[in-house]
């Protein structure tokens, strides 16, 4: 049975103790996913079997299974196609055919419109459509992307080593944990997942925690609409992620690592697993486990990600306590985005100070930008911090845009007057916008911005975990108000009410999802004058 293949054979003697209850619940999502991959849905029998094997109360297991959009508790055909109807794909005319499922952003924005197909069976098959990754349009000035498209086979350890791979890990071992931490602090590297937290501060905090063990988690649940950078890194340069995680583990004193990747990235799963399998000796005792999501944007929130790995619903925890103290399985945990970890290789190789010489004083290094929408050359671009939005759009071939969405659905719209905005943390913050996860979606004169706002509102309504009131109900009220505004039949105080809902979602929601769910909509109203009377 598919679940046994994941959990190992049922063993009556070992699964009877309370201790086992606590140690096995974390296998719940892998077990449910295995059942779904085998027969196309999670049957009552499969759910019951997983509950019994893992000693998870059946009501709890049901609660977990119904949390994830990609798990079906109703019988359905083995062959399912998910059609992205999100921002970038909508601009390229995505349509959902009969029998197909509409999907939030699939992270294939540079080849929009995109689909993701799963075929259940004894040998389950998953594919991204279109399957071909377009080549990078940029060859100059690449640091993070230097091996990509440069003829380095992403499935070959030898090729990676020949291209200079594992030199940074060797250097890190020479330096030792303390010196590596020192270099990361000196690099002033800020997290690239969206929150821009100083990586050195995070790592030091974890390294200093007396509680053991420490965990290292790579957040690869990239699901912010318009974001695809981490997918490209994982698909095209997976050994680099393994190497950088091993360095991070050394610095933070972690013995166990997890990579949590969204389900919709099958090629990344395959190549990462290959990279993990081939580097056991090089990692010298540091274990890495690949964990795969099941369709939940909120699981990219770090504490929701822990809940998901632990076998609970992906409901974010209240902070504090922060993950550096109480993280995965209640232990000190460093969570880093894929792109952040890639930067670590250069920091260690060339030293923190040298790394910080690129970019600006407050935003060091280079940044990946995911450009999509109305441009001639959509794709991934790498620029030193400080380059302007205009220069980025010129690289990608954009005629005068009407608006640009920076940072994704949780980001903000800017108008053409901000084209000379330097793309740095400090300049975007001063302008009241965000770089977020590096999303740049371009809208031209013909684009329908109101449709984009409705899609964003729908996205947050769908992806809210439902735990806290401001987000659970606020995202619904936001969407309803936008529909009335779009239809030209708003309530008398509609915009004022919408602004209050926005403020309360920002102020009173538990996590970043609710806190940012009104940002893009509010920015379109204030920056672009959408719905202005």
């Amino acid at each position, binding site marked *: 049975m598919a679940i046994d293949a994941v959990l190992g054979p049922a063993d009556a003697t070992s699964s009877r103790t309370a201790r086992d209850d606590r140690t096995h619940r974390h296998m719940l999502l892998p077990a449910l996913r295995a059942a779904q991959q085998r027969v196309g849905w999670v049957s009552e029998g499969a759910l019951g079997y997983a509950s019994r094997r893992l000693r998870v109360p059946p009501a709890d297991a049901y609660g977990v299974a119904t949390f994830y959009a990609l798990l079906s508790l109703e019988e359905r055909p083995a062959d399912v196609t998910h059609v992205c109807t999100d921002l970038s794909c909508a601009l390229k005319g995505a349509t959902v055919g009969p029998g197909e499922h509409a999907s939030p952003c699939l992270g294939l924005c540079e080849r929009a419109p995109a689909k993701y197909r799963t075929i259940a069976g004894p040998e389950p098959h998953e594919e991204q459509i279109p399957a071909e990754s377009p080549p990078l349009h940029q060859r100059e000035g690449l640091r993070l992307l230097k091996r990509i498209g440069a003829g380095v086979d992403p499935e070959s350890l030898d090729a990676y080593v020949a291209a200079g791979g594992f030199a940074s890990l060797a250097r890190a071992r020479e330096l030792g944990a303390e010196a590596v931490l020192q270099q990361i602090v000196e690099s002033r590297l800020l997290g690239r997942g969206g929150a821009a937290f100083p990586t050195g501060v995070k790592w030091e905090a974890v390294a200093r925690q007396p509680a053991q063990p420490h965990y290292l988690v790579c957040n690869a649940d990239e699901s912010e609409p318009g974001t695809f950078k981490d997918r490209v890194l994982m698909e095209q340069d997976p050994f680099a992620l393994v190497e950088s995680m091993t360095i991070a583990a050394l610095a933070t004193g972690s013995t166990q690592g997890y990579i949590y990747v969204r389900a919709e990235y099958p090629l990344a799963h395959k190549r990462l697993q290959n990279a993990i399998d081939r580097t056991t000796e090089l990692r010298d005792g540091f274990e890495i486990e690949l964990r795969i999501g099941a369709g939940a944007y909120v699981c990219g929130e770090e504490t929701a990600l822990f809940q998901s790995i632990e076998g609970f619903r992906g409901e974010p925890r209240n902070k504090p306590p922060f993950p550096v103290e109480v993280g995965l399985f209640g232990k000190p945990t460093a969570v880093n985005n894929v792109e952040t970890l890639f930067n670590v290789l250069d920091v260690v190789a060339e030293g923190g100070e040298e790394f910080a010489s690129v970019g600006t004083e407050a935003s060091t290094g280079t940044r990946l930008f995911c450009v999509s929408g109305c441009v001639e050359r959509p794709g991934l671009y790498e620029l030193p911090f400080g380059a302007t939005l205009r220069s980025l759009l010129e690289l990608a071939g954009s005629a005068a845009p009407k608006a640009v969405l920076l940072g994704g659905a949780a980001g903000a719209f800017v108008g053409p007057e901000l084209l000379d905005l330097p793309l740095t943390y400090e300049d975007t913050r001063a302008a009241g916008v965000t770089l977020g996860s590096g999303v740049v979606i371009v809208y031209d004169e013909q684009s329908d911005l109101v449709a984009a706002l409705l899609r964003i509102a729908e996205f947050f309504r769908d992806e809210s975990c439902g735990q806290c009131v*401001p987000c659970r109900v*606020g995202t619904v009220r936001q969407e309803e108000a936008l529909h009335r505004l779009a239809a030209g039949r708003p309530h008398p105080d509609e915009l004022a009410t919408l602004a209050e809902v926005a403020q309360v979602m920002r*102020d*009173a929601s538990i996590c970043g999802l609710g806190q940012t769910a009104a940002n893009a909509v509010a920015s379109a109203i204030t920056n672009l004058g959408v719905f202005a009377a």
Partner: protein
Amino acid sequence: MTISIAAPKKMIELSVDGQPVRVFEGSTILDACRMLGVETPTLCYGDTLTPVNVCRVCVVEVEGARTLVPSCSREAEEGMVVHTDSERVRLSRRLVLELLGSSVDLSTAPEALAYIEEYGANPSRFGPEAARVEHEIKIDNDLYVRDYNKCILCYKCVSACGEDHQNTFAIAVAGRGFDSHISTELDVELPESACVYCGNCIAVCPTGALMSKAEYDKRVAGTWDPENENVVTTVCPYCGVGCNLELHVQDNEIVNVTSPHDHDVTEGNLCIKGRFGYEFVQNRPKH
């Protein structure tokens, strides 16, 4: 009385609405507010439950914090400066109540209704077409009724059924977002589920979404009369544990049984016998 053998706790000082207050380390902001007599609304907070901080009606402003913080779960810290009555706090509390009132039937939720009054909340501002939580009323057993149209998803029943008290785990939150709801496994009826009918979920439900069948029937019949209810305290006659009972009596008939939250033995919990096994008291032989 439980005797603690832990090391004595440190006292910390913070300020709430300009008043200094000293609390034991590990206390929450809500504890500090209550010590000062600062009224703070709560819906998902339960005095016998682990805080889940999901309703967000207890939020307060802490100087230096980017967002508002839930007072029910946030630990007080030395030197913290807390405001509970700022414009920002009042807006969040009012709007949270409006969001709840516009999506859920609060007609049997006295605390929520009182807060709506107090904060001047207007749940109808989102219009008559605002989406509401819609479920069939579940009457599938003789002891209690589940009307999830009244559920604000405070998680109290889940905590009481699960690890906070009963350890039965018959119910959990299922679904996601606005479709989230309390459910048994595969949404089966209560008699098919792991439920043991302790009724501890009813005891903590703040909205009447969970209600004894006796109360539900009387409400439907129009004979529910809380104004003329007497509460009689006694000890459960079934076993030797010694659970205190509060018999809620209307018109000389027991309509509900609860236990005091500050009772060492029960912390407000009972078993099926204590909670529902009272019929013999009023089953008088007819001559």
